[in-house]
């Protein structure tokens, strides 16, 4: 005999097997449709990848060979207007050779590295600054580049 709380009635619910199965089937089918609705746009996007892009991805990268002994100033560009008294001059030359950087007020001598690159700062004066960058090879041959750089403390 089942005992309940005094003053309360116990109601027994009888659910038929068919009803339970119907509920299960309904929930499962509904769930599947819902999942399909979520996934469908993603699946469609995946299928629509253009063939051209795939081809582009498969292309092998091209390599640009830089001549080893080319004397070149990479930064800054000629006629630059600068607001900093010090400027870093960068470039390429033959590896491990002296590079002379000259302005009318300052000069520096550095050596290019094993890859032939160099970088050094030089001081500027207000107004126009002609900067001469010269490489000197082991035979004493020189190659020069000239940069005209403008520096002002004033706000333009």
């Amino acid at each position, binding site marked *: 005999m089942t005992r309940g709380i005094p003053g309360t009635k116990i109601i027994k619910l009888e659910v038929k097997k068919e009803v339970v199965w119907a*509920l299960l089937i309904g929930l499962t089918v*509904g769930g599947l449709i819902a999942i399909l609705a*979520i996934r469908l746009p993603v699946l469609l996007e995946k299928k629509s990848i253009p063939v051209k892009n795939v081809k582009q991805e498969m292309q092998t990268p091209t390599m640009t060979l830089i001549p080893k002994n080319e004397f070149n100033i990479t930064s800054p560009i000629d006629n630059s207007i600068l607001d900093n008294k010090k400027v870093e001059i960068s470039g390429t030359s033959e590896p491990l050779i002296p590079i002379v950087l*000259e302005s009318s*007020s300052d000069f520096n001598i550095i050596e290019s590295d094993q890859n032939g690159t160099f970088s050094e700062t030089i001081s500027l004066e207000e*107004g126009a600054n002609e900067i*001469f960058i010269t490489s000197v090879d082991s*035979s004493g041959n020189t190659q020069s580049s000239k940069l005209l750089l403008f520096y002002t403390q*004033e706000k333009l």
Partner: protein
Amino acid sequence: MKKIILIIIIALTFVYPVSAKDATISGSISPTSASLELIDKLKQIEIFKDKIATKVSQKRDADKKAYYGIVEKIADNKIDLKAADGSKKLSFEEDTIFYSLSNNSKKEIKSSALTPGILISAFGYLNDNKETLLAKYIYLHDEKPSRIIGKIADLNKTDFTITVKAKEGDQTIDIEKLTKTSLFEKGRALSKVGFTRFKLGDLAFILGLKNEKQANRYSAQRIIIFEMKNLTPTVNAEITK
């Protein structure tokens, strides 16, 4: 059987709408999505404003210019300038500031100091047709020294002069009391040296002022000597001004 079909339909009705709502952006406008759309629009406006500001700044930077050269002519606040890369035109206004750069000092001066033959650099913006620089600042420079590179071909220890084989021919260099001389030896630090260390065949980097009385003669301000024992006779010497 009717009951079962009814239950299936009810179950489908409950499950599908709940899941489908998560999958797609609902067409119905809820307060949350409306505010999100507003935020998105505001963000887009901000991005658009930034883009405009960048474009304006880029355009202004592109018009920012500086010229350097010798004044050829001045008339009605307009200057014709002879620059290394051709003639330039610039103009100045009442608010243009003029500076004199002499003996390492900067001094504000009047526009009347500007005369033909003076070396100047001017900073400003190009006008609309990009032909004239509207100068904001004009600097009056002293004469700039010349730069000479070449192999030492002769040493005169009495007159304290050296002759350098430059690209443009032999150049006579006067060594003054104030001339700063340095020696570069590979693998060593740059050292200050006297005239006695100069040797025939050394490579010299010279900065000097032109002698007004004698052509191909300079008064040296600075000399850097490259001591290289294996110098070939054909050095690519040059002179640049």
